[in-house]
């Protein structure tokens, strides 16, 4: 699965995307896996309320299932316009 990071999430984790092999069933489980890995993930995901997630390029919540998913992206609330 491709995992993408944008804005300050990208900066905290230190890379814009990575390939992750996971058996996580939901976005929340994937986050728990990442947080357990390294401090920089723990810092980036310390406040999920301050984050948004897109699953296959559609906005979803953290309970979204990951079965069959190709791409998950994490980022702060958008500030376009």
């Amino acid at each position: 699965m491709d995992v993408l990071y944008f804005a300050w999430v990208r900066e905290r984790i230190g890379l814009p995307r990575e390939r992750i092999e996971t058996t996580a069933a939901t976005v929340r489980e994937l986050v728990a896996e990442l947080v357990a890995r390294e401090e920089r993930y723990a810092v980036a995901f310390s406040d999920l309320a301050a984050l948004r997630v897109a699953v296959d390029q559609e906005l979803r919540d953290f309970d979204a299932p990951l079965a069959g998913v190709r791409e998950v992206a994490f980022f702060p609330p958008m500030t376009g316009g």
Partner: protein
Amino acid sequence: MRISVQEAAFDAGAELTAFSTGLTSQGAVVTFTGIVRNSPEGDLQAMEIEHYPGMTEASLREMAQKAMARFALGDVLVIHRYGRLAPDEVIMMVATAAPHRKAAFEAADFLMDYLKSRAPFWKREITDGGATWVASKDADEDALKRW
């Protein structure tokens, strides 16, 4: 309907002319143009806009289609830039055409509300003091409840 996510600068006036050409039975055209404002201290060097290629254009297209249907628009235009912009440069533009004024105004307002909170853009301000990600406002999220 035209959606463009681009790095290049554009002329909002030329876009309005192009948008208006060929409209029929539309009595009202509304445009909104967003411009890089300087910081209160006047020390903004640039506004950097990051986006999510792939998702960005699709999400703008979906918003535009919703606006077309909901407000029975004759046409809609959305242009949004990314990359590094100087103060007073145009960031983005929406245009809406409808038979009557109210629908054209509301559709432009609707598009802006959705674009602010649902299109994957992130702004960072570069000033003499460093780089700061622009924080989203609760008011922007609340604005969506109007629709």
